[in-house]
């Protein structure tokens, strides 16, 4: 896998250098599909594209954030999986299926919002692998998933692995 790592590494550096963290547009996808390399499963690239090799929870292109839309709680007093103090975890959540290149597996990732505070304002990150409009609500990330909490003001978003997607 090291060959891929180095290429991905170079690609995500160009990705970071050329664009601010928030509006990350990368050509990583094309590198894999069009390039001479052995093409992996076409990895989604979109506004704030994620990179299956990236494992830093405070960065928008962290592999687990492939269907993330919101502010990363890891920048707001929480972690990649824990809400900041004073907020509550959303009762309902949406799911994404994200590829972790380190083990070549796709994982089912559940995204929960943290609720009860006005939005944190740090680290806005939007990526939309297999995300769909609201008529497929379970995989839609443009609604406030704090909607079912008694305190339904949106603060930030966390993500947790709930299983291998097979």
């Amino acid at each position, binding site marked *: 896998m090291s060959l891929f790592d180095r290429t991905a590494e170079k690609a995500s550096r160009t990705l970071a250098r050329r*664009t*601010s963290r*928030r*509006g990350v*547009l990368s*050509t990583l*996808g*094309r590198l894999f*599909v069009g390039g001479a390399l052995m093409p992996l499963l*076409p*990895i*989604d*690239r*979109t*506004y704030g*594209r994620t990179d299956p090799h990236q494992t830093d929870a405070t960065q928008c292109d962290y592999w687990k954030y*492939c*269907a993330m839309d919101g*502010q990363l709680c890891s920048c707001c007093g929480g972690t990649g999986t824990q809400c900041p103090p004073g907020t509550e975890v959303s009762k*309902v959540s949406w799911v994404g299926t994200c590829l972790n290149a380190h083990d070549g597996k796709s994982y089912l990732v559940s995204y929960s919002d943290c609720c*009860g*505070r*006005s*939005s*944190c*304002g740090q680290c*806005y990150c*939007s*990526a*939309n*692998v*297999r*995300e*769909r*409009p*609201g*008529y*497929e*609500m379970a995989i*839609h990330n*443009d*609604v*406030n*998933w*704090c*909607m*079912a909490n*008694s*305190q*339904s*003001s*949106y*603060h930030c978003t966390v993500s947790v692995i709930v299983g291998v997607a097979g």
Partner: protein
Amino acid sequence: MSPRTRLAAGVAAVLALVARAAWADLPIEHTGVAQLKPDNGHRLYIVDKFPPAHAIDSRIHVIDGDTFAILGQMSNGSFGSFAISADHKTLFNATTFFSRGDHGARTDVVEYYDTSTLIPRSETLLAPKRAMTNQYSVFLVESAGAKYLLVQNATPATSVSVIDLSTKAVLSEIETAGCFGIYASSKLPGRFATLCGDGTALTVDFDTHGKEVGRRRSSTLFDPDKDALFITGVKMGERTLFISFLGNVHSIDFSGDVAKQDTPWSFIGAADKAARWRPGGYGNIAYSPFNGQLYVGMHPNGVEGSHKTPAEEIWKVDVARHVVTGRVKSDGANYLQVSKEAHPLLFSVNVKEGIQGSVTRYDGDTLKVLGTSKPDLLEGGGPIWVE
């Protein structure tokens, strides 16, 4: 006062006396409230797409489309939706407020703002279940004949609340499980349609008490997994135009008791398909009945998941001839809208990496850029309404 300053004051006093004789005093002035500039058809209402840092204080900005001057502002609360009435006299503001800013009791409400004064005249209290979503223009829709206001709910179970606009009372809530978005029939006040996750459209009829009297599900219109439809549909006479993730145009007729569509067609030629040009953005579709052109925000290197990428180009597509008739570079357009006139103006709200919320004005026929606002006119930008 130190001697130096006293000298300065003395000298200044002399100077002032000399000066004053020459000039009359400036006149007394009075405060007041400025009149809102009448809408010449280029007045823009733009909601801030969920400003990252102050979600509970979204706003609807009123902006002069000809000069980009700020004309006024109204609160859009938390994850609000808005729409302008057919007679242009009322702005419907459906949103959520919390009794202690970002916590406490939740109040969902529709406020009725007067578009000539920007002052809220009245309101309708809603059940605390309205859909709190990023800004799309299909969650708050006036019915045909301006009789009802239809409000999208999500808990996340979905339904539509029906408000009688003559009494401002909520008549009913109609369940629409598995479906989302509201497309009012252009003829019957008591009929709306909604798109569903199985690729069909559900058409619902209700009586003057808001009671459902029938629903019909269409045949399969699209494949949500392989080529989903963007949820923002634009009106073309009796029909509503949608574009798909891969760039196919679906023209759906919601006016009948069951939705029907013509054969979808693509406007992306072979070369562009190879470069994987695809539509993207949050509300990147607009249509002008005056020139029959559809405007779409496009980006290259499209892949699964790139459907929210701000536009690198805006394409103009002739709906009758199914061909692209113009392309222009874009500053990351996320929302498009056209003015309602012959030789329409095209407006885009842009989110160019890092710089949120500029507005660009184009000649709708030639796609020539006529002007761009300062980069931070808005904090994020959202759907534009031009009446």
